[in-house]
């Protein structure tokens, strides 16, 4: 259910606002995407989405109720026959508002309000995303098995390096009690030399 709007009506009065919103909704259904001010777009959204809901219902009564808002039969026909099938699986949220910036002249925040006509695939996609991380480790595990050989080859090399480093470090550690700072300084070159 649409929440009651706060603040004054748009335009000159309640009737003016109704007409403006009806005309904006008609323009939206005709062009699928319109540029308007943020305030108008936010007021338009519940009006337009309600009309889309009526269009999804699709019977004669719903059509007459939609015609009570938008008096243009061609627009209503397009809404019921072309737009309604595209949003059949969508459970609300038929419009999308994107902020564009500020209008030159009065600095009004402008938005693009458009009908969301893409097929609904967000839910399967999200599941696919969750599956991918699960699947990824499974795929990685064999990959690791393949790559394990390389680390095995590498580890002895590292071990030899470690063993090569170890005496040097031991020697450094032996020297350490005497004077720690030069020993630490001596450690770094030996490690570099080992690598």
């Amino acid at each position, binding site marked *: 259910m649409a929440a009651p709007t706060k603040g004054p009506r748009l335009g000159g009065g309640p009737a003016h606002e109704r007409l403006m919103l009806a005309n904006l909704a008609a323009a939206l259904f005709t062009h699928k*995407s319109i540029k308007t001010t943020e305030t108008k777009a936010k007021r338009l959204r519940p009006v337009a989405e309600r009309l889309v809901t009526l269009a999804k219902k699709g019977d004669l009564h719903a059509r007459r109720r939609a015609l009570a808002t938008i008096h243009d039969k061609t627009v209503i026909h397009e809404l019921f026959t072309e737009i309604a099938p595209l949003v059949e699986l969508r459970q609300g949220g038929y419009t999308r508002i*994107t*902020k564009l910036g500020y209008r030159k002249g009065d600095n009004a925040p402008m938005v693009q309000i458009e009908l969301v006509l893409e097929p609904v695939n967000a839910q399967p996609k999200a599941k696919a995303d969750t599956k991918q991380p699960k699947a990824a480790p499974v795929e990685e595990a064999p990959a690791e098995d393949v790559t394990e050989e390389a680390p095995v080859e590498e580890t002895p090399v590292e071990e030899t390096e470690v063993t090569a480093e170890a005496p040097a470090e031991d020697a450094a550690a032996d020297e350490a009690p005497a004077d720690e700072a030069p020993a630490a300084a001596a450690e770094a070159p030996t490690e570099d030399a080992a690598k």
Partner: protein
Amino acid sequence: MAVPKRKMSRASTRMRRAQWKATPPTLVKSIENGKTVYSLPHHAKVVEDSAGTPLYMEYKGRKVADV
């Protein structure tokens, strides 16, 4: 009709006007192609070609509007 009794002093005028302050807009810093770009958050951006001609407005990888 109610009218001011006294002329408003220059000091009062200036004290009032001293409270008119501009606030800096909240911007998002991002790096695109090695250039640091500051842009408004949650707003569509203008996509330009290599020559700098604006092509269209884009938001979250979706073409939103013409410029």
